[in-house]
């Protein structure tokens, strides 16, 4: 019976053979992940965040952990759009035939539009994931994603620059995520991805200094799951466009929980850093979990937790 489960998922017009994708920044540009597991099994492939210029990233140390998660301040290390268009993206497209999602990071609204236009030229890109957690350099470094006016401006600019489906990836470091979500929907976003990492820090007892060179880092992993679920729930109630849920998903049960809260597909990041086979394990376990719940189609679970009690 288990084999009869239909795992197909859709995020608006983008169809996925299953709902499991790697979260940006934990998959590189595919080649590194392909050494570790069979990436052709993935429902979609989400690339590392790409900026206009190549970036080395932040100083060391960039990572540390806590009992149920980790903090990172990698600082968007990536080879820059020119290299990605010429090398990394075509290489991924040779290895992976499903939908490829380009994660886009700008430091000004124009930069987002420019990057969106560049990716628009490539047939290999199925959708753009607009990471609005980047610091807005023209506004004192506050992230675009923490201000609904700035988030709307970015969405509008990339909407104009590209005909591809636009998924806006929201920051959880806000008072009311539904305001930002609505602002992006109003400007034509095709889907919303949430959550990016939660701002946090740790202090090293030995050095008596912040554990990360950058002082603050993004918290992710299992400890983030309840926060992510709450936000996916809230955004599902607030908008009509589909949601890609992420934040702490580590098992098929977590993925289903995210789906019940309102996600049409999930991304898995940190769990794969501890156990590189995490995504394949989730894909393998989903049919059993869905069958045990008495369902035959993954897509039927989307948002089910919002329907009347009992």
């Amino acid at each position: 019976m288990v084999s009869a489960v239909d795992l197909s998922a859709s995020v608006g017009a983008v169809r996925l053979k299953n709902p499991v994708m790697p979260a940006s920044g934990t998959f590189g540009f595919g080649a590194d992940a392909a050494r570790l597991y069979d990436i052709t099994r993935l429902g979609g492939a989400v690339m590392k965040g790409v900026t206009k210029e190549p970036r080395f990233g932040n100083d060391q140390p960039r990572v540390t952990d806590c009992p149920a998660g980790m903090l990172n301040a990698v600082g968007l290390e990536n080879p820059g759009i020119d290299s990605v268009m010429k090398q990394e993206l075509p290489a991924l497209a040779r290895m992976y035939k499903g939908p490829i999602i380009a994660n886009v990071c700008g430091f000004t609204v124009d930069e987002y539009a420019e990057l969106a236009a560049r990716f628009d030229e490539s047939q290999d890109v199925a959708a753009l994931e607009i990471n609005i957690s980047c610091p807005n350099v023209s506004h004192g470094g506050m992230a675009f994603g923490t201000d609904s006016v700035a988030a709307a401006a970015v969405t509008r600019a990339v909407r104009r620059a590209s005909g591809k489906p636009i998924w806006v990836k929201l920051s959880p470091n806000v008072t009311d995520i539904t305001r930002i979500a609505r602002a992006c929907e109003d400007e034509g976003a095709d889907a919303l991805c949430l959550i990016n990492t939660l701002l946090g820090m740790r202090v090293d007892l030995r050095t008596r200094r912040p554990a990360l060179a950058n002082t603050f880092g993004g918290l992710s992993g299992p400890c983030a799951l309840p926060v992510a679920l709450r936000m996916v729930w809230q955004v599902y109630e607030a908008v009509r466009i589909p949601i890609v849920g992420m934040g702490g998903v580590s098992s098929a049960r977590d993925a289903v929980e995210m789906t019940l809260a309102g996600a049409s597909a999930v991304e898995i990041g940190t769990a794969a850093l501890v156990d590189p086979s995490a995504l394949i394990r989730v894909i393998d376990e989903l049919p059993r979990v869905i069958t045990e719940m008495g369902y035959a189609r993954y897509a039927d679970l989307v948002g089910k937790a919002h329907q009347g009690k009992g």
Partner: protein
Amino acid sequence: MRQGLYNVISNESVARGVYRLRLEGSTRALARAGQFADIRIDGVYLRRPFSVADWDDEGFVILYKVVGEGTRALAGARPGHSLDVILGLGNGFDETISRAPLLIGGGVGAPPLYALAKRFIGIGIKPVALLGFASRCDIILADELRALDCRVMVTLESEGERVTDRLDEASADRDRFYACGPEGMLRAVKRQCGLPGQLSLETRMACGVGLCRGCTCMTLTGGKRVCVEGPVFDKEALAW
């Protein structure tokens, strides 16, 4: 690279706060001295990386110092326990480029140099080892290296001496150095030692397998991942 469960054979204190852990399981993924194992430890979320100090067909050995939560928990591992390990990570040292090697270790940087010494002995080359420790009760692997018939020089900070104080003497008839230890020591060795050399770097890692860019260090040809392109870098390549 291989991920699997490895059985704890022994886990004993060998110096102040330093333990020697022997794990049983396939070592086919190990190709070179200087490669490392990424070990999942109950109680901390991310895996912890440790250099392989020795290996044979049945298993491998690490020597680790208790410095925090993860290593403290690891010290509690007992025979009969098993650990989830990703083995055979990183590039490792190249023993084919030296006929008269000098191995320079600081503290728990010595373990991969023991594995390297065995590789050299295996091809008929006898290395010289220069090891630095904080004090007498921190010394590791000096006797084991002597048992391989290597010449071993030990410096102790408690006696006011560092490895850099004896670099000239140690490198006299040598053609290349191989170093592993705290970053401060590595920088000093790179600056002061006239020989070409390879250095094994340590940075905090998240995945250890090349996915996250958590461990990147700067080289003259751009950022490189310590976990994949390293941990061993040529002296000439580092942007220090």
